[in-house]
């Protein structure tokens, strides 16, 4: 029986409607061997979010850099949901209905429901950066939104609703222009602290417009004073204490944008990397107690290979060469290559963008959200780069580039090189918008990583990964018991035959976004996991052995629990 009960070959008719055209497209597009293919499924998702930058022609600088997004399972149903940040009306702009951030519940099968109102997360502030973490260790995920203006901490009530507790928690952070934000357990005490990056000191009074060849354009970051970033220590009682002075963070003023907090020196604590726009990037190295030393210059991540400041935008980390160390990928301004900093494992990084081809195709565009993800499950991490010019009229004074542009996918050859396969990347890679934040997660739980992109002044792009699979995979969700509940900062090593992969759980990454709390490992043709080691932040190391592939497993601290979902 081929057709029975509304299912064909075990797939629902609805699913077939999605799958068949995608298969036809894959066949018609005839991707080259090894291509990574994305299908644009935005229309199928019922997502109606439209980003606004709050502009009214005044060209306030904050308009040009918004916003990020978060992918996380807010209701614990096993599906990754989407939270889009939104701008807000800036001086001179008028809207009939105030734009809000929007939360979309993933119903499965690429259907999403707008639950913003029900969940109570429709902040009307000017959203820039976002991070998600269980700051109160109550078993559900909370949201921190870094705004231009007072910030918001949405505590998850555990019933599908949230309450803004930023003021009570002491993390409203004044009235600043925000950027990236990360939850991390900086002092290994089992609860999540909060890093809050700030972009620059903009006010309506010091606003300015520049011109290029007489054409008006947004001013640059250097037209405004820099700001120090902020760091809050979790008091363990639902409140935080501002520790940016004693931690050493406040000593360094910059123009913060994206970033990621991770254990770059593999010493068991979480460091903070923050990309600065047109200025040296900061790597705050943690001494294990929450005191930080800024070491970006000497270790080789502050500047590009040539020692020039980059218009750094987003940054994420991952072990692209499977040598056991987290490397950093960073996006940048147009006419600059993005940067891939290889972690040499001896306390130093080197910019290998050129020799690896990791900047291929990026020079024409301003690049934003990014991540190193194994999209084709072949055992090495590829790179996705979201693109879109910051200037909405750039063509008028420089048509070497365009305001609306396609995104880029770089495939890892497995030999330390990347190839730009965007042109063979399916209809999803043909979308030309002005992308900003991007998130990467398995939205349909089919064992590969999909992509969500927030586009400035437009609807989002939802890309389903339809790559011809090259192998097995494993997804790992962590459950802390003594340490923070989602294993944020925990270091995971997966050994499968000759392949050893590492990753960490990060909260807040890429371009002012949050994603990837369940770690995804592509395994190629290896059909068994020999061993998984989890080094918990502030806890011990657990070892799990002989695990089946092609599944999502939950690993609980102390090894007491292992199981699917």
């Amino acid at each position: 029986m081929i057709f029975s009960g509304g299912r064909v070959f075990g797939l629902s008719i609805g699913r077939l409607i999605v799958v068949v055209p995608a298969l036809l497209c894959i066949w018609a597009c005839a991707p080259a061997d090894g291509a990574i293919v994305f299908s644009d499924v935005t229309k199928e998702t019922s997502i109606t979010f439209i980003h606004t930058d709050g502009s009214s022609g005044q060209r306030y600088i904050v308009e040009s850099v918004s916003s990020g997004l978060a992918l996380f399972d807010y209701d614990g149903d096993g599906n990754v949901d989407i939270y889009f940040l939104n701008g807000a009306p800036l001086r001179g702009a008028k809207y009939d209905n105030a734009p809000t951030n929007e939360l979309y519940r993933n119903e499965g099968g690429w259907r999403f429901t707008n639950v913003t109102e029900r969940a109570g997360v429709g902040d009307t502030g000017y959203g820039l950066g976002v991070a998600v973490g269980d700051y109160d260790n109550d078993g559900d995920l909370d949201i921190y939104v870094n705004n231009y203006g007072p910030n918001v901490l949405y505590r998850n009530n555990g019933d599908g609703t949230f309450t803004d507790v930023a003021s009570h928690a002491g993390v409203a952070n004044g009235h600043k222009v925000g950027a990236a934000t990360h939850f991390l357990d900086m002092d290994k005490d089992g609860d999540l602290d909060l890093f809050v990056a700030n972009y620059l000191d903009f006010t309506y009074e010091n606003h300015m417009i520049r011109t290029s060849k007489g054409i008006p354009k947004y001013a640059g970051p250097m037209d405004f004073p820099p700001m120090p970033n902020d760091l809050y220590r979790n008091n363990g009682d639902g409140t935080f204490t501002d520790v940016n002075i004693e931690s050493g963070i406040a000593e360094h003023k910059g123009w913060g944008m994206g970033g990621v907090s991770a254990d770059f020196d593999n010493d068991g604590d979480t460091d903070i990397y923050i990309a600065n726009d047109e200025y040296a990037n900061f790597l705050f190295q943690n001494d294990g107690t929450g005191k930080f030393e800024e070491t970006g210059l000497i270790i080789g991540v502050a500047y590009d290979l040539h020692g020039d400041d980059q218009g750094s935008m987003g940054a994420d980390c991952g072990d692209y060469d499977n040598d056991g160390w987290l490397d950093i990928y960073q996006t940048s301004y147009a006419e600059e290559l993005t940067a891939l900093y290889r972690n040499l494992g001896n306390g130093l990084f080197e910019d290998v963008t050129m020799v690896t081809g990791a900047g291929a195709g990026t020079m024409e565009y301003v690049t934003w959200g990014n991540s190193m993800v194994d999209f084709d499950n072949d055992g090495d991490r590829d790179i996705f780069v979201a693109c879109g010019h910051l200037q909405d009229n750039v063509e008028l004074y420089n048509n070497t580039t365009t305001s609306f542009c396609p995104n880029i996918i770089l495939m890892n050859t497995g030999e330390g090189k990347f190839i730009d396969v965007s042109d063979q990347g399916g209809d999803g890679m043909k979308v030309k918008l002005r992308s900003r934040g991007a998130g990467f997660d398995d939205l349909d739980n089919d064992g590969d990583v999909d992509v969500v992109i927030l586009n400035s002044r437009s609807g989002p792009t939802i890309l389903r990964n339809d790559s011809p699979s090259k192998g097995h995979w494993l997804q790992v969700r962590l459950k802390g018991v003594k340490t923070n509940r989602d294993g944020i900062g925990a270091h995971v090593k997966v050994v499968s035959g000759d392949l050893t992969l590492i990753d960490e759980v990060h909260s807040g990454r890429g371009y002012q976004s949050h994603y990837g709390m369940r770690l995804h490992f592509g395994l190629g043709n290896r059909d068994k996991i020999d061993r998984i080691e989890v080094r918990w932040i502030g806890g011990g190391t657990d070892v799990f052995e002989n695990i089946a592939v092609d599944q999502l497993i939950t690993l609980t601290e102390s090894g007491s629990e292992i199981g699917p979902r």
Partner: protein
Amino acid sequence: MIIDKKTGQRYAGISGNSQPAFLSARRNIVRALVILVIIYAVVAGVFSVKFLPHSNGQPLRLEESSDYTEDPVQLPVIKPLSTKQEVIDLKNEEIRLAEQLLRDFPDNEESLVVMGNLCYRHGDVVKALEYWNKALQINPEQASVYKSIALLYMKKGQFDDAVTQFRKALEIQQGLPDVYVNIGHSLMMSGRPKEAIEALQKEIQISPDADFAYFLLGQAHLQQKEYQKAQEYYEAAIKINPRYSNAYYGLVSACAKLGDRDKANEYSESFKKLKSEERKHLKGRKIEYDDFVETQKSAAITYINVGRMYRENGKLAKAEELLKQAAGLDPGNVVCFLELATIYQIKKEPAKALQMYKKISEIQPEYPLSYLVIGILSAHLNRYDDSEEAFRKLITLAPKKSDGYRELARLYLKTGQNLPEAQSLAEKAVALEAIATNYFVLGWACYTNGDNAKALPAIKRAIQLDPDNQQYRLLYKQIQQRN
């Protein structure tokens, strides 16, 4: 990311270098200086004080120059642009001029290049490429156009295409400066450091002072993990340019990777200091929040390029009008004054030419060659005090070059003043540069001072070095006659 040191503006650029000198002010200044050297040769030939034979051994005053009653050149005073509409109008006027040029010289590749360059400056690189390619169809032997196209590809990140175009430029003009370094840079950017090293080695043979080439060699060796070699090349770059912050950054990287943390820290301090000094230029940037001034300067380049075309094709009145307009738009651009000076020389209006050179010396007071031309033209116009002042300034600015000593000696010989000093000056000129014209002036000075014993070998040497020069032979004859 490159930040304009003056305006603080963010603009994109290829890192490691302050943007290839593509149609830039620097390129125009270089071109201006080349023109100035050529003009000097012409001026020196036409207007310089010549030795005239005479019978009594006494210095002769030359015939007075013609009566130069030229009106001074009236240059327009153009107000700085202050509105967007004025910017638009000026850009439209530039386009109108370039289109007119295309109509006036329809089959001339240079007019297409002018239009291409204009499009590029206006940010329309698509059209720029079209015009440059049309220019190449008419005349494929234009190395500079291939170079422009190559630099454009570099800007777009199409490095393989850039290398192809650079190589075409080299096929036409081997040894063209700045080409191998850009090939090297492109190869580096496309991840081919080994090939880059080959190209960069060629550049430093052509331009031994190319600090950027040495820096890139450091970068290429760094990418090859040849840290010791990288360090050596960074140090070579710094030797040429002690304020080369990027090279210090390279040293930080190389030393750190060599395990020499102390050195790395030391170089990082130097790097941070230089970076911070570079950033100081950003102070006060908010005063100039638009690029109207830059737009106006860019428009001046169009007027100059179009004016030059008309000048080269004999339409001097039209050229003069456009170049004056250029001078009004950008009173700091030496090229328009040089072009105007050229026109006045063609029109035999030395007083006006002199006025232009004085403008140039006001803009670039430390550039010696303009004083040489001012001195020669002033002498030609019998303005001996001005001439003497200019030559003395030339000696101050370029004490190791013989031109100032020689020309001042020549002036004294012409005017019959300070004759013993003229001989000393001529001797100094010969000591600095043993060239024919210096020996000639020395011979003349010795002869005038009655020192035939020294005059004869000097003039003989001049003739040896330049046997076809009739002036030298005349002097030789006179000295022999006196003996």
